[in-house]
């Protein structure tokens, strides 16, 4: 418990850093909203007044502190379209989650399984085949995969099985038909990276001395591989899965969402950056930072649960 507390405390500078960078980029140097609010031909007084309202006449520090206070109070106000930020988040985040989660899980699970197979039959044809496919998967751009899958599966030139784009989910079949192509695309692209990474983890672990010991005492190679080696490999696996969560939860869905026109958090954030919708940005950035700290803490705890060498003290 003390450990968790300390870990959380070390997260504070990180949150400050993330907010500082994002404040500087997205707010301070971000798009100037004055003219968008006033329309064409404003008077000089109007300009001054709006700039004052938006806080543009204050110093960097003052504005950053104001930004921080809002963050701490979790008071994000309304987005520039007038909708409360909270309800915007409540609407978009679940969409992103259910959109991304299947691909994310499939990518890692299949990645681990394929990597296990490749490492187990290391140097044989199964390994070579899997790794060749992985390199191909790694070499294709995500965007190309999305477009190709769309052509193949959604268009009249292809199989025409799923909706081309959009998000109109009322039932489970709807859901499955809308996520099918995005999930296939994410899984396909993730597989290349995940398989290669996990295979190298497994193979590295296979060369350890304790594996030789286990063999010297007659344990079967299957048992050594799936019990002894696998438990040691859990550490890097957990770290990798954990640290991809923040990327996936906020940013990873951006391309999919904007390509397929799905109203998720990635698309909302992207639009907020373009239009300088500050309340939304604040909310997303603070959520990201908190999520990151949370994931880091969770990662450390899991790490310590798996690896007895690191004590919780």
């Amino acid at each position, binding site marked *: 418990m*003390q450990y968790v*507390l*300390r870990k959380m405390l070390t997260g504070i500078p990180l949150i400050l850093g993330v907010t500082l960078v994002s404040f500087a980029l997205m707010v301070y140097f971000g798009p100037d909203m004055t003219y968008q609010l006033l329309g064409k031909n404003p008077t000089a007084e109007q300009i001054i007044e709006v700039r004052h309202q938006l806080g543009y006449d204050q110093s960097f520090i003052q504005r950053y502190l104001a930004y921080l206070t809002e963050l701490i109070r979790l008071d994000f106000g309304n987005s520039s379209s007038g909708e409360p930020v909270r309800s915007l988040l409540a609407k978009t985040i679940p969409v992103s989650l259910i959109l991304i989660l299947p691909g994310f899980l499939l990518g890692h699970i299949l990645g681990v399984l394929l990597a296990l197979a490749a490492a187990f039959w290391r140097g044989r044809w199964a390994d070579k085949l899997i790794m060749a496919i992985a390199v191909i998967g790694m070499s294709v751009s995500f965007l190309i995969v999305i477009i190709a899958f769309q052509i193949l599966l959604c268009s009249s030139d292809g199989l025409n099985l799923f909706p081309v784009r959009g998000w109109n989910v009322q039932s489970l079949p709807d859901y499955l038909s809308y996520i099918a192509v995005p999930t296939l695309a994410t899984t396909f692209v993730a597989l290349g990276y995940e398989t290669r990474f996990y295979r190298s983890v497994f193979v590295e672990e296979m060369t350890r001395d304790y594996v030789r010991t286990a063999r010297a005492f007659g344990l079967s190679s299957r048992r050594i591989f799936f019990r002894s080696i696998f438990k040691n490999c859990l550490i890097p696996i957990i770290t990798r899965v954990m640290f991809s969560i923040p990327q996936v939860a906020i940013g990873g869905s951006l391309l999919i969402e904007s390509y397929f026109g799905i109203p998720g958090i990635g698309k909302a954030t992207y639009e907020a950056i373009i239009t300088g919708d500050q309340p939304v940005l604040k909310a997303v950035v603070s959520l990201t930072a908190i999520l990151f700290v949370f994931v880091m803490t969770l990662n450390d705890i899991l790490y310590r649960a798996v690896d007895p060498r690191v004590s919780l*003290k």
Partner: protein
Amino acid sequence: MNAEPLVQVRGLSKYFPIHGGLFRRVVAGLKAVDDVSFVIHAGRTLGLVGESGCGKSTLGRMLLRLQEPTAGQVLFAGEDLTRLDRRQMLAYRQRIQAVFQDPYGSLSPRRTVGQTVREPLDVHRVGTPGDRQQRVDELLAFVGLSAQAAHRYPHEFSGGQRQRIGIARALALNPQFLVADEPVSALDVSVQSQVLNLIVRLQRERGIALLFISHDLAVVQHVSDDIGVMYLGRLVEIAPAGQILTAPRHPYTEALISAVPQIGRRMHSRIVLGGEVPSARTPPSGCAFHPRCPRVMAVCRSVRPVLKKNGDEGSGSVACHLYP
């Protein structure tokens, strides 16, 4: 031996902090080296033996100022090295050099042997570049390598040859004092004797004072005039080599000598200590050796013995209650 010793170590200590608590405050100190004193005269060799974790390497690193001592002094030719700043220390670096343990790790793999041996000369701007080149050739010849070796990389050499290169580098600046930390323990037996002979030769021909650190008593005795024995950060006995090996006084020294496997002796004659070396984090009370000592007395559990000069039984000192 009335002249002032070249090296005088006085009360040298190194405590490593142990962190704990919510804010990782320092809660205790690990006494890696605890109040060690000795002297080395010009041209003489002190051998330092002890098992892993006894602090002998930390001690050597403090003499080289690769690590800052927590307390104590290192006097070199009368000057306290621990008080010098980086620039002042640079002048002394020429006079104190080091030979390291790992023949594979002590040479930079991406630099040629010539560059490595020359580097000290470059840093201290000794002579013209031509002089330096000539010096490199001389040094390589002294340690038994050809001049062509200068153009090759460390991975082309065997462990013994690499150790010779390390010695050549240490000799480049004509030091008066050399700290050698386990210089032969990573070498094979037949090569080990070659390198040991080289060390003896440089000591004899160049009059270099030497601190020779090793876990191997037999190796240490071959090069040393005096031998110091360390246990858990403290010096427990120090005496002339012949005396300490034939008539050890501290029970730990005795056990250590007896534990060295010898050709021409069967197992049963040796003293086998019980238990293991305790952790330096939680050293035993009183004499640190008392839980394993075959001759432990009541006083050993509570009072820590200090290093005292032997009276009539020869020169040297011992820290043991058996010798009041």
